[in-house]
């Protein structure tokens, strides 16, 4: 896996801003979860498709996204 | 008359329009935003003017201009915003201009909180601005009373050519209660020969001014203002007294705390203590003599001021009581509302102290 995107779902406000800036269109709100504040938090289903561009994280107003990238792997492949 | 459910702020705005107010200048601040918002929607419907000013300072000076040109004019704000209006209010008083100012008080000092409070009593009754001046201060305890005071306030302002303030805590602005609208004529508003409307070549220029650079003129102006204030004191004191026979302890409270004091009277009754409520409706002029007479009664052992502040009206209570009975206090600050139980307990403490 090249990249990993993690959400602090407790603090996500379900605003969807991350979803529109993801070039891979892989973020959506998880309507099966309602967090403590009453929001459906964002999540990524197809993590493998993630390119680790961090657009989502940069856009998230609540800083709930952390993006990691396997730089080693990138270098070697 | 049909009863309607009105939110305090909107009721105040509607009452102003019904009282013939056609000019409103204000700036947003919680918890009174519904007043300008209502005005922005409804003023144009009656050919009136709503202007959202760039600040409270600008708003009060627009009021100055409009009042000087003869309009029935109003502004509203809440505590920090009212602080900013102090210079303007002093000017309005100095230039003898009528207007209505509404303060829907929140907790302070500084930015404080947006919860209801009564910590601007000093500012309202003593004048937070510079110089020797007074504004008539009306304190409603229900939405209905707030509506009635709006009309009363405009009329008093015109009668005495001075600013009138409605001083209400945030609760009065935010709550809804039933209101009955009384017919009130707006076509017989007084002529204002002193207003600046253009000379039309038919009279000498009218001048709206608070500057009297010569100290003798300045003194005369102050003496004139003072005579007016004495007249207001003589004629316009309003209060409500609910003092039972054999009353042992008298609560003095205005606005929401007066309602809570009423509840405390009940609580005390259950415990066999005879309590009464004295509710000043004009905070300036304060019903000093009236309260003094009640405090003098033999049965009365103590007087207790109840305020949503750390103790401001209590000064007037002390001045009125003038030492004939001990004065107790029940106060809450910063947006906290006292409970009837706390109010009742303060009375019991005061009675204990009085023995």
């Amino acid at each position, binding site marked *: 896996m090249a990249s990993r995107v993690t959400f602090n779902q407790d603090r996500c406000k379900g605003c969807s801003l991350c979803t529109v800036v993801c070039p891979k269109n892989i973020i959506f709100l998880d309507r099966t979860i309602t967090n403590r*504040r*009453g929001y459906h938090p964002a999540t990524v289903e197809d993590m493998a498709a993630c390119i680790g561009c961090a657009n989502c994280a940069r856009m998230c107003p609540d800083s709930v996204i952390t993006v990691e990238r396997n730089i080693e792997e990138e270098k070697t492949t | 008359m049909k009863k309607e*459910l009105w939110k305090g702020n909107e009721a105040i705005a509607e009452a102003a329009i019904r009282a013939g107010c056609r000019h409103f200048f204000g700036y947003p601040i919680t918890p009174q935003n519904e007043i300008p918002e209502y005005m922005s929607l409804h003023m144009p419907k009656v050919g009136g003017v709503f202007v959202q000013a760039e600040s409270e300072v600008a708003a009060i000076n627009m009021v100055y201009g409009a009042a000087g040109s003869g309009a029935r004019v109003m502004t509203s704000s809440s505590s920090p915003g009212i602080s900013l209006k102090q210079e303007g209010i002093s000017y309005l008083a100095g230039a003898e201009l009528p207007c209505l100012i509404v303060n829907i008080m929140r907790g302070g000092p500084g930015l404080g909180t*947006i919860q209801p409070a009564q910590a601007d009593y000093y500012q309202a009754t003593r004048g937070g601005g510079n110089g020797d001046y007074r504004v008539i201060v009306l304190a409603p305890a229900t939405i209905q009373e707030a509506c009635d005071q709006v009309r009363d306030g405009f009329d008093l302002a015109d009668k005495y050519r001075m600013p009138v303030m409605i001083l209400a805590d945030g609760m009065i602005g935010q709550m809804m209660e039933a209101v009955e609208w009384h017919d009130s004529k707006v076509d017989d508003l007084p002529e204002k020969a002193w207003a600046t409307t253009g000379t039309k070549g038919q009279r000498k220029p009218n001048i709206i001014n608070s500057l009297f650079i010569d100290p003798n003129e300045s003194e005369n102006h102050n003496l004139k203002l003072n005579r007016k204030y004495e007249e207001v004191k003589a004629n316009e004191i309003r209060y409500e007294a609910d003092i039972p026979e054999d009353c042992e302890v008298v609560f003095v409270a205005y606005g929401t705390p007066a309602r809570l004091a009423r509840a405390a009277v009940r609580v005390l009754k259950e415990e066999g203590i005879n309590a009464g409520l004295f509710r000043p409706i004009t905070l300036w002029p304060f019903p000093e003599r009236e309260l003094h007479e009640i405090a003098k009664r033999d049965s009365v052992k103590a007087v207790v001021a109840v305020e949503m502040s750390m103790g401001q009206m209590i000064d007037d209570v002390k001045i009125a009581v003038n030492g004939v009975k001990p004065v107790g206090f029940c106060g809450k600050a910063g947006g906290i509302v006292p409970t009837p139980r706390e109010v009742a307990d303060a009375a019991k403490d005061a009675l204990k102290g009085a023995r």
Partner: protein
Amino acid sequence: MTHEILISGFGGQGVMAIGKTLAEAGMKDGYEVSWLPSYGPEMRGGTANCSVVISDEMIISPIVLEPTVLIAMNAPSLDKFLPNVIPGGKVFVNSSIVDKKVDRTDVDSYYIPTMEMAQHLGNLRVANMVMLGAVNEVTDLLEEDTIREMLSLLFTGSKADLVELNINALRMGASCANDEACMIRSESQ
């Protein structure tokens, strides 16, 4: 008779509207009423609550500190206000999003799955009216006709078709309050 009702939930759940409808209808039925919102920046996507007092005598204080009726539209509201409910009071829980149960035995509790029922009516926004219907059914506070009349005054013109939807929501809530299967009810012991 004095009902002191506290209604609390997330912003956007129509908490204020439940309160206003109760107050309006109470007034129409000839009671003294008051409605008092909480306000503050916590309203930004946070919680909201309001106090309604309906009484046959002059209302002294509009602030409900010890509710006779608590309507908890979300879990934080239940946590916060349940302890203040008077013994013998009634607690209405929006069971669609509140998992918890009322842990007091000296109050009557009602669990209304407002959102499921509103979904059933095809419009999630009437969940609050479902709750109102249940509350009114249980407390017998107000005439159904009054509420209906009021709603038809509220929704006019292009919104007139919302009247029927809201009334249906009220009815559904009412019937739910009578149906053990629909809601779980625990009486005070």
